[in-house]
């Protein structure tokens, strides 16, 4: 009787999409620990978790968009430009609060443009956000001429470098945003509609739901999430760099896909995205600790992405 109950709990646990990848993460961490025992050291975990937090938050935004079958390639450039705006404002003597708000507004505004182009001008998400990727990066280079912006006020640096209850602040930011995003997706009508659009856009439209408006909001959320990370990174590096965020769109999409998000829309979760980001972070860190050439990291991540997609295919059959 007891055994049966146990089995059924296990069975329910495994019925969740995320269980398999969670298990994969545990196995991965154990393997890394065997080959590089210092993986489990407090200082290493601190660094890894902070790095994972950055990728995860950008990937949260990406998740919202991918759930409807869309894609946001501009997150890396949006991160960069938001950081430059915030850093520029701070260096120019504006208050920290106002500077941060300006940075966040930049992300939201760029997301709004993406969303309007996709919903109302009917440009394919891939193209609209590819254009934004290039445009926003170009603006960064025009504004900074390629030079970093320094003179970040000291008190602000704690956001990127400090900790609270011995956990890095960026990790706390991720936890809070994860909770909000999860609530939005799983408890509200807005979240239900987001999944519904990805599941069947036609049916959702015919059910009287304003699909276009929701999509615009989703790209704004993606822009907002990217700008949060962009702003934290200026505190982390004590400057805004012209190349911050380059290539991050790939990490964000990879985290979502490894975390079980379907690129055709309709399925995926915040928890999955966190695990996806963690798997990538642990692999990168593990390879460094095992003194594998950094060139291999990129190759291994590539293999993991495709492997995740293959597993998903098999599971859905």
């Amino acid at each position, binding site marked *: 009787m007891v055994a049966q109950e146990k089995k059924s709990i296990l069975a329910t646990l495994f019925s969740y999409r995320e269980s398999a990848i969670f298990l994969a993460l545990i196995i991965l961490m154990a393997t890394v620990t065997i080959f590089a025992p210092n993986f489990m050291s407090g200082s290493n975990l601190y660094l890894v978790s902070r790095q994972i937090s950055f990728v995860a938050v950008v990937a949260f935004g990406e998740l919202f968009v991918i759930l409807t079958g869309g894609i946001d390639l501009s997150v890396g450039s949006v991160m960069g430009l938001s950081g430059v705006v915030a850093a520029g404002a701070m260096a120019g003597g504006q208050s920290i609060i106002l500077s941060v708000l300006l940075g966040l507004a930049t992300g939201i505004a760029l997301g709004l443009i993406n969303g309007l182009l996709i919903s109302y001008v009917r440009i394919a998400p891939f193209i609209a956000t590819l254009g934004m990727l290039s445009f926003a990066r170009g603006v960064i280079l025009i504004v900074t001429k390629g030079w970093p912006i320094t003179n970040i006020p000291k008190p602000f640096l704690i956001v990127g470098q400090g900790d609270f209850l011995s956990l890095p602040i960026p990790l706390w930011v991720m936890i809070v945003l994860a909770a909000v995003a999860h609530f939005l997706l799983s408890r*509200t009508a807005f979240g239900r509609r987001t999944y519904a659009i990805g599941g069947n856009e036609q049916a959702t439209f015919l*059910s*009287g739901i304003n699909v276009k408006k929701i999509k615009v909001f989703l790209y704004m959320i993606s822009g907002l999430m990217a700008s949060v990370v962009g702003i934290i990174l200026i505190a982390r590096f004590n400057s805004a760099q012209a190349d911050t965020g380059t290539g991050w769109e790939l990490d964000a999409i990879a985290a979502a896909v490894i975390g079980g998000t379907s690129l055709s829309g309709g399925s995926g979760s915040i928890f999955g995205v966190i695990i996806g980001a963690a798997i990538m972070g642990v692999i990168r860190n593990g390879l460094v600790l095992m003194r594998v050439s950094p060139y291999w990291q990129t190759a291994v991540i590539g293999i993991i992405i495709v492997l995740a997609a293959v597993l998903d295919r098999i599971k859905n059959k």
Partner: protein
Amino acid sequence: MSEPLLALKHISKSFPGVKALDDIDFSVQKGEVVGLLGENGAGKSTLMKIISGVYTPDSGDIFWQDKKIKLKSIMDAQEKGIAIIFQELNNCPNLSALENLFLGHEIRTSANFVDFRAMKKKAKEIFSYLDVQIPLEKPVGKLSVALQQMIEIGKALLANAKLIIMDEPTSSLTDKEVQKLFQIVKELKERGIAVIFISHKLEEVFIITDRIVVLRDGKHVGELKTSAATQDELVALMVGREMHSFFSKRTKEASDETILKIENFSGPPYIRGVSFYLRKGEILGLAGLIGAGRTELALLMIGAEQKTSGNMVLHGKEIDVRSPWQAIQHGIAYLSEDRKMKSLVLQMPVRANITMAIHSAVTGTLGMLDRKKELEVTNSFIRLLDIKTSGPEQTVNNLSGGNQQKVVLAKWLATKPSILILDEPTRGIDVHAKAEVHKIITDLADKGTSIILISSELPEIVALSDRVVVMHEGQVKSVLEKKDISQENIMSTVFSA
């Protein structure tokens, strides 16, 4: 009689919930033109897809020139010499006429490059034989449908087809183009090529065919020599004469109060000047062939597509509906004809699907969905409509077609509509579920809901409707009062040119 070119024996084919073909025998002689007739859903397309290798039959045998064969794919059929020209032409609109003509069968030079010169020469031969002028370099998408069809016929000739299936080839041709097509069919015939000709236009079938086969409900119900057939005879065969006692009866009459007036509606793709009215508690049938514009009209009414002109008067007040959301607010609900593609989110549970159009009613603070309210609504509909599901959390993908349809009905009933537009509400569901859906429809009308019933199943329209609007090519052809409603009247209205 000579030996048949193609013979089908005892062919059956089922899809989930529907027996599409039931023990069909069918044959074609060399150089013969056979007409295939039947209402929407009679099984014509399924039969043609079996002959052209798209579907494999569940049981039965196919003989080609007296040899038993199996057709595993459309390529398989092409190799044997069977070509099909679909109503929706399958070509690559961006490629030139020449490239389309030789698609997949390009002539190569000795160095394995495409030999355009040889292809052009061959193309000119074929089109001069067909006696048509086709600009070979032009993208096919820029050519008229008639010319595109000629390219398809040319393709069939290139492949040395011995049998060409034409699925409603004249549906978008002008009279002159139809004459040209008929001339070509006659030439093909003289060459010994057999043609299966599917059409809804009886007069064309009379002109061009040698023999007519009629299907109804997946069964072979009649076969006539064209020279000996009459129009009445064919209509009677297509419609059948079964009794429909299993349809539910109305307990109340529709009231005289007009609830909705549609005045002079026009809009994409081809709706022109449609007017009709709808009374409280009335079931108004909307009959017509596929492509008559019934679904398109409904989409204009709910604002899913934008009308170019026309008025809508609800309860005596003119309203302007520009989106499905506004339609719902005005109490107009539309159940789409395509359950899987346009009605349900298949991977979501019954609960989420039923509450999909009433989010504002089940949403509390912070935009949170009130799960308790959702379950209340869902459970009440599971009971009311007798939806067979393991519970409100069951994914709709796992329900049978009939129960899925009930979930869609529940979604729309939850919006408490005063006008319910039902587009093919019983398509692809089994007989029992059909009867249940019919009962739901009559009960609703008895309680005062006004219903517009779009259906391609004439018995359903005839049994349930208080009045019938017959549509043809985007226009209202006539309105039949209760006493005049019969399958024969509807069909002859449609077919009267």
